[in-house]
């Protein structure tokens, strides 16, 4: 399963809801305002760093750069993807679950 989170972890609880319910080995893609969860130096960074041990955590590059951040600002273990790779992941992971 590919889990999708598109809200800021500082405004909504969708990231926590996802982390509590994603099966081990699942993939999690952070996009739109969800990309703020992928940045180092925040109050949620430890939680997300830990999540990279249990899940494949991805962030959508265009949404990250649109908000003024470079891949260098990411938590170690979070992988950047482009739109094509996003589409590939939805196929590879056989289904998506959005956390709204």
């Amino acid at each position, binding site marked *: *399963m590919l889990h999708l989170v598109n809200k800021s972890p500082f405004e909504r*609880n969708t990231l926590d*809801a996802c982390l*509590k*319910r*994603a*099966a081990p080995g*699942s993939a999690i893609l952070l996009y739109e305002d969800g990309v703020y969860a992928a940045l180092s130096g925040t109050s949620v960074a430890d939680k997300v760093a830990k999540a990279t041990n249990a899940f494949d955590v991805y962030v959508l590059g265009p949404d990250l750069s649109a908000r003024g951040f470079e891949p260098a600002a990411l938590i170690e273990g979070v992988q950047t993807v482009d739109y094509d790779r996003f589409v590939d992941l939805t196929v590879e992971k*056989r*289904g*998506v*679950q*959005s*956390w*709204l």
Partner: protein
Amino acid sequence: MTDATEASGGTSVTKRFLYVNRKAPYGTVYAIEVLEMILIAAMFEQDVHVAFLDDGVYQLRKGQTPAVLEMKDFSKTYRALEDYGVEKIYLEKESMEERGLTADDLVIPAAVLERKDMISLMDSMDVVLSA
């Protein structure tokens, strides 16, 4: 017609659909919209599952009186789901406990799953639609 795929001319495959409800009723339009999607899916004879987690468990609370807000009481519709062949309805135990709800507080006799079982259920689905 046995399923949507056959209707479009492909091979017959019944998919496991899961509708995930995480929002309380009335404050937003999500709950009633998902309920309408479930009724539509049931008409297409898919293998429909419905899960209630987080604030979604409030949707099944007994004794709702939205008429006082001039809103429709769609909580009664959950009782009709069985007549549409939708019988796989699950609530997450931890979400109920966080909110002080017990099985006696609900409009229907839904199955209460521990989070670990809810995780397996959600991971086993072909299509997950959330709100």
